[in-house]
């Protein structure tokens, strides 16, 4: 079938079907209120949730840490009675800091996705940007999920190895080893999880972009 024939059929079809099939205003409003299931809309919602919860919990942890540092609270947390008051303050401070950084990073990414969604840039440029954004989302997901494990395992290992306070001996090497192993392991697990979640989409977008690359494919005679 020639493209010109298709054009005639298409034109006729458009006239027959679209001109008498307008959606009413109420239906449009109703559609606009419903929750989108699109990939980037879902990512945006997840970022909004992560940013909100991490921000609230992180701020709470920082306030609690300040109470411990300034002696307002003099008892360790009931969930970790083996920690001293100062150690509880330090671990709460670290947790709060990580959570607040995660919240800010998610908020920044959320705003970027929001801006990008409303973009009217040409398709090729948009695809290139969406690849970058998706890669950043994957990286953010990996680091924000993976950072807790080495921090907490390091803290537990420190508590287990150094009952008598931090000393520079072989135990310090063990501590570094445990923290490094935990970091690598959590990074690998988080990477695998994030690529399982978004890797397919990333490849799809790269495929579209490759299709639009003028250096790709057979030359025209």
């Amino acid at each position, binding site marked *: 079938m020639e493209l010109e024939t*298709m054009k005639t059929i298409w034109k*006729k079809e458009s006239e027959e079907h679209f*001109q008498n*099939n307008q959606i009413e205003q109420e239906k449009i409003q109703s559609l606009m209120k419903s929750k989108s*299931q*699109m990939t980037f809309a879902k990512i945006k919602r997840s970022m909004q949730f992560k940013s909100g919860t991490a921000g609230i919990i992180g701020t709470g942890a920082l306030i609690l840490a300040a109470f411990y540092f300034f002696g307002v609270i003099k008892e360790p947390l009931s969930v970790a009675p083996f920690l001293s008051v100062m150690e509880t303050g330090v671990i709460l401070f670290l947790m709060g800091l990580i959570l607040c950084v995660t919240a800010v990073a998610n908020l920044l990414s959320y705003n970027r996705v929001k801006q990008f969604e*409303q973009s*009217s840039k040409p398709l090729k440029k948009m695809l290139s940007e969406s690849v970058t954004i998706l890669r950043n989302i994957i990286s953010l997901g990996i680091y924000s999920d993976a950072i807790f494990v080495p921090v907490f395992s390091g803290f537990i290992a420190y508590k287990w190895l150094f009952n008598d306070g931090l000393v520079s001996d072989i135990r310090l090497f063990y501590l570094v080893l445990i923290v490094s192993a935990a970091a690598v392991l959590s990074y690998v697990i988080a990477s695998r999880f994030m690529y399982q979640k978004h890797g397919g989409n990333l490849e799809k977008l790269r495929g579209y972009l490759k*299709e639009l690359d*003028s250096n790709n494919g057979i030359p025209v005679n």
Partner: protein
Amino acid sequence: MDHQAIIHKVCGMYCDNEEDKKDLFQEILINLWKSYPSFRGDSTFTTWMYRVSLNLAFQRLRKTAKNMEQVMLPTTFDTMKSSGKEGLPNREKQQMYAAIEKLNEVEKAIVMLYLEEKGNEEIAKIIGISQNYVRVKMTRIRRKLKQIVEE
């Protein structure tokens, strides 16, 4: 130019089922609404509409529409594929849609714009490639369509 028809055509071209189509339709509407203030008039309104709509169709990536509010859209591209309207031979129509289905996503976008009687310059602006490359792509698409029909 019927602006709503542009959204319907993009949805019809990139969605296989009604739920998916509703989802994309909604997303395009919302984003056209939100991004309208940024429309500066440096391209025609329809070029801008095609850009926003196609960008969203390509961002859609996955078909996941389970929780959508049930709002029925009128008969559009989906039903056009299967209907046998008077005036046009059904076989020809089916042949056209079957051929389009076999094209990849990028080719579908270019063909749709071509069928909408957009010139190479406008297609190039919407897709973001050179006019020369639009011609190259069109030549490849012609060949591909010929092969598809011959099969």
